[in-house]
């Protein structure tokens, strides 16, 4: 399969008729790591949820293409099968369903009938991945996210990403609420997938995780738009100067 290309073109999105995204343009290709930064309430999570097809968000204009295919026409599960993955900011708890059962069901859903993963192959891969992420093996038999700490939930999202091997991963505040050791583990997980067939769109408030992941492109999002893009140094600059700096710069541009 050729390297993935995710194109977001002039994307406008509303919740309950209130505009949230006001023309987002962004392209993520295989092999690239993109970071989207910005203050609270500027639409970063809305962008992530819209890309995955959350029913609450209405796209009012623009398009999203994955390898030239219209993503907005696909149901959420079809997007996942096409290779999109969203690590959620607030993962749901699924009572009564073990993490192992969930992952196996998800892998088989992507593989389709007649190509199901064998129990042994699955178990081996799960054990190996959990070891890699320094996770307690008991985790696999706990109900999905039920009673998990914030850090465990984030780690579980990364575990799912490694097991499902997506082509484009959208990581929505995967670093929030994590201590420095946990951030290192999460970064290690993301790095391990790095290849020309894998692209990342990472949404974060903080520069901290970026020092481990070294994004190729950093985008600043304010008021529903990407207002500034640059290389890794833009993130460092933001950390020092704060978002107000970009906001002021924007205001000064107004003719």
């Amino acid at each position, binding site marked *: 399969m050729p390297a993935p290309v995710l194109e977001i073109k002039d994307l406008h999105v509303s919740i309950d008729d209130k505009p949230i995204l006001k023309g987002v343009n962004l392209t993520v290709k295989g092999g690239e790591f993109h970071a989207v930064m910005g203050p609270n309430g500027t639409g970063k999570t809305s962008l992530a949820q819209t890309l*995955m*097809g*959350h*029913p609450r968000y209405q796209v009012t204009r623009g398009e999203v293409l994955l390898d030239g295919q219209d993503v907005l026409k696909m*149901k*959420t*599960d079809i*997007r*996942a*099968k096409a290779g999109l*993955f*969203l690590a*959620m900011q607030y*993962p*749901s*708890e*699924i*009572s*009564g*369903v073990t993490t192992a*059962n*969930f992952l196996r*069901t*998800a892998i088989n*859903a*992507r593989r389709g009938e007649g190509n199901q993963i064998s129990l042994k192959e699955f178990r081996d891969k799960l054990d190996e991945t959990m070891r890699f992420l320094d996770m307690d093996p008991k985790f696999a038999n706990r*109900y999905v996210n039920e009673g998990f700490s914030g850090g465990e939930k984030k780690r579980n999202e990364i575990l*799912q990403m490694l097991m*499902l091997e997506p082509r484009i991963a959208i990581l929505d505040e995967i670093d929030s609420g994590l201590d420095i050791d946990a951030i290192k583990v999460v970064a290690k997980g993301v790095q391990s997938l790095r290849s020309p067939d894998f692209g990342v769109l990472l949404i974060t408030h903080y520069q901290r995780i970026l020092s481990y992941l070294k994004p190729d492109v950093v985008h600043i999002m304010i008021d529903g738009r990407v207002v500034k893009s640059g290389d890794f140094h833009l993130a460092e600059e933001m950390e020092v100067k704060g978002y107000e700096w970009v906001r002021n710069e924007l205001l000064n541009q107004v003719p």
Partner: protein
Amino acid sequence: MNMSTDVNWLENVRSLTLDRQEEPQWLRNWRLSFLDNLSDYAWPKRQKTPLRERQLDQIPLTEEFRDTSVPLADLHSIESPLHVVFANDRVVEQGVSPEAQERGLVILSLRQAATQYELDLKEWLGQIVSAPLNKAEALNAGLWDHGLFIKVPDGVDIQDPLLVLHYGHFDNEVTSLFPRTLIIAGINSRITVIERYISNDFEGKSLFSNVVEIMAKEGAQVHYGSVQNLSNHTEVFVTRSAVVNKDAHVDWNIGEFGGNVTIARDHTRLAEAGAQSAHTMVFFGSGHQRQDFDTEIIHGAPYSTSRITAKGVMKDKGRSAFHGITNIEHGAVRSDGRQKEQTLMLSDQSRADAVPSLLINDNDVYAAHSASAGPIDQLALFYLMARGLSEEEATRLYVHGFLAPVVDAIPGLILRNSVWESVERKLRA
């Protein structure tokens, strides 16, 4: 209803029983005691499930049973050295291992037992169901056909589960069925009975009224399981009752899946000190099904313990009401009664009510209840679908997760699998 048809109907019902020439006189008189006063009995009244519009009295009663055979696939699902198969309320196959026979386990039709175990029947038949009876129960008393009688002698521990299959083949002649089971567990005896109710999918109206009575004597342990998968055109009435004596246990594991309307009355009396009962119910309604459950456990003696656990799923336009009643009588000191009900609605048009109540007439007791009803979590569905599960697969996994803590705790693989299979069928329905 017009009075003359009512009279005709009653006359007809009565003559059905008078035809039972082969039965002992005492039993015919017992049956007639219900039928002669049928107009005194009313159909059950349930606040959330009114029956007035259903014209239950207009459903014709089966006048003549013709032989019918059980579909082979269903017959082969019965795998136990101990089994009984009913087709249209008549025993068509029975297996009792020589070992169980040697140890004195009695498995007979109630009709045979009426002659051979007359004293037991006179003592217990109809005595365990609490008054007042409703019309479905009175009709059952008057019209049960073969019935099932199980007696476990004192001190006998039967390891193999007794599997009972009730197959109903409704057609224009067979429009009503009245299965009846009486279990007498002797002192310190032990038995597991699993009954499964299935039927063909006859489009016409049909009436089904089932009565189960369990007498657990001192120290006896009875595990009773039942899975109901009748046609969605059948009006289903179920009454299950137990009397639990000193230090005895009666554990119920019930799965209710079929029927058009299903009205169940579950009633367990902890009659002597140390008696215990755990009542677990799993139900799943779809289409236009209405399910209404009254489950009551009465603590009539000290140191008695009860648990009521219910998990229900409603989809399409299905509606359910579950009333759990923990009734601790005065003097039942140090009793412990708890209940927990949870229901899940898969559609906007479905509805599930869970109403727990505690009636407590003594101070020195422990009682607790919790109930919750809610729609399926749309965010959770989104989460599952974001991992590549279709909406159908995501719903299935979610429902499995919802039911698993209760279903996986059901003792016995046969019963557990039967409940899971029924759940699967409802999910696909």
